[in-house]
């Protein structure tokens, strides 16, 4: 009997569930056949093709451009240059400082946003009066148009004479500080943290709400104090969510462009120029395609290091969730 199974199994393999061997004698399933496998795959094809064309092809072209020396304003300058543009990028002190700034800005923004996010999530993870309103207020910074946020911070908050921060701090003896000029990185990170803490909060909150209440109650009955309960029960439980937030946050914040463009324009000097901003200036102000492309490739390599860990985490979450593929 089993001898009649293999062709059917081979043909229906498309649905991922092998036909149970040794069952009904070789009754051809209506959904078997190579045409059917294609028909099933068909709905996927437009999306897949679209993503390959729009995301993968430009990246390959970027790789190609990065091997060429090309200034958009100089006709005939487009020629093969090997790794010269990478060398030019690495020899450029502005590039090296941009790479360093990217790490500095991303790491501090992600860590601080996560710390604030965990604190907010803990505060929200209780029943209290107006919880829905508080939650709504707290997610709003993430929803505001980021460049609008930047413009508002730059003017109404950070202004050295009429800014709100100046008014709050003047009684403390700190007044008329040119925040974006003298504390550029700090001021930028504050805005990034304000924008991203709600993101972290929501992810950690999703973790907290899946927490085992019985374990917490048991710990309380056993006389564990809040700090111990948090360290030994809550923290291990939300660790995976914190990791997910940190990885996703890093992937997004590494790309920060608008905030820098509006708040500091990369300055003073190159103090807040990160790699995306450096690349933008190379291409749109200096018109050097080759160096810009080389910088782009380096950003990708940096991001992919983080992304590898992120993908591993996603894989775990996917298997843990009900919708395991």
């Amino acid at each position: 009997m089993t001898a009649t199974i293999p062709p059917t199994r081979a043909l229906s393999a498309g649905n991922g569930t092998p036909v149970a061997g040794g069952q009904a004698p070789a009754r051809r399933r209506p959904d078997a056949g190579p045409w059917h496998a294609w028909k099933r795959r068909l709905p996927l094809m437009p999306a897949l093709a679209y993503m390959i064309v729009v995301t993968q092809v430009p990246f390959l072209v970027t790789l190609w451009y990065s091997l060429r020396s090309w200034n958009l304003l100089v006709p005939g300058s487009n020629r093969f240059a090997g790794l010269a543009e990478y060398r030019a990028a690495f020899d450029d002190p502005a590039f090296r400082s941009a790479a360093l700034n990217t790490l500095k800005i991303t790491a501090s923004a992600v860590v601080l946003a996560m710390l604030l996010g965990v604190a907010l999530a803990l505060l929200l993870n209780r029943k209290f009066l107006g919880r829905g309103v508080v939650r709504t207020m707290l997610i709003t910074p993430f929803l505001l148009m980021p460049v609008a946020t930047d413009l508002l911070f730059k003017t109404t908050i950070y202004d050295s004479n009429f800014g709100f921060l100046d008014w709050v701090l003047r009684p403390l003896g700190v007044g008329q500080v040119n925040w974006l000029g003298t504390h550029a990185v700090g001021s930028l990170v504050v805005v990034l943290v304000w924008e991203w803490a709600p993101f972290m909060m929501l992810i950690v909150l999703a973790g907290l709400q899946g927490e085992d209440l019985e374990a917490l109650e048991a710990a309380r009955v056993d006389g564990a104090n809040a700090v111990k309960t948090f360290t030994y029960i809550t923290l291990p439980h939300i660790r995976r969510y914190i990791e997910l937030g940190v990885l996703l946050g890093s992937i997004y914040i590494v790309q920060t462009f608008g905030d820098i463009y509006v708040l500091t324009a990369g300055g003073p000097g190159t103090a807040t120029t990160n790699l995306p901003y450096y690349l933008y200036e190379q291409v749109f102000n200096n018109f050097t395609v080759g160096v810009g492309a080389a910088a782009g490739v380096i950003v990708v390599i940096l991001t992919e290091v983080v992304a590898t860990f992120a993908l591993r985490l996603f894989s775990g979450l996917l298997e843990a969730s009900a919708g395991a593929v």
Partner: protein
Amino acid sequence: MAVTTVGPPPGRTRWARWAHRKWDLRAGFWTGLTWVVALVLFFPVLWMVLTSFKTEHTAYTYPPRFVFSPTLYQYGQVFNGVQNFVHPLEHSIFVTLVSTGLVLLLAVPAAYSLAIRPVKRSKDVLFFFLTTKMLPYVAAIVPIYVVAKDLGLLDNDWTLVVLYTAMNLPVAVWMVRSFLVEVPRGLLEAARIDGASTWTEVTRVVLPMIMPGLAATALICGIFAWNEFFFAQSLTATNGPTMSVFLVSSIQTEGLYWAQLSAAATVASLPVVLAGWIAQKQLVRGLSLGALK
């Protein structure tokens, strides 16, 4: 920290009553603290809205004014002023709506073949979508800019539509898939036994069930498209700006008009803030690409 939701049961002894009152006090403390923190973090948003109802004269004062007679003048300027936001608003609305529609059109069939009776190597395909989301935009901008320039597609809404669709498609595929796997299998089996075709199964059973999920997906893709700045700045800065680009350029050329800036920023942010408030239960699913509920 009192982070648990369970309080001690009200006891009968005096000691237990005392303990209960102490717990009440502590809960009250944390509630108060939560409110204070939330108000402090929300304050910049509130300040933006307040400033938008001021005249430039009252906006630019020391100390800042909390009490003033509100005016709608700035909103009038945003819609009817010399440098009004009407055209950028139209660009933003067009790009956001069309790209979101296109995303759903591509994502729903794809998610269907990845979630319900998944095709071979579904997991690889899902992870391919995810990796495209992790590819930084800057990696693609150089060739996109060069091609758009050569084809005369700068300052063209459709260029942004194509890019925003690619930007949101992975999010939508993962999100819609996460809603589809929650459709009870028994229901699909029943429909099939009743002789429903795939088309009937999708339109009569699956789609109605995931409608709320689709709405949430659309809202989240809309938020990302509406707020996008990098592509818009690189590709439409000269002559067909979206809201985000126009906001930045008009403020930089006009100087310090705080009240008008606040009104413009409020108008620019309002659609997305409302969308986010409505979709807030699903926000985390979108932000984690369907991994968390």
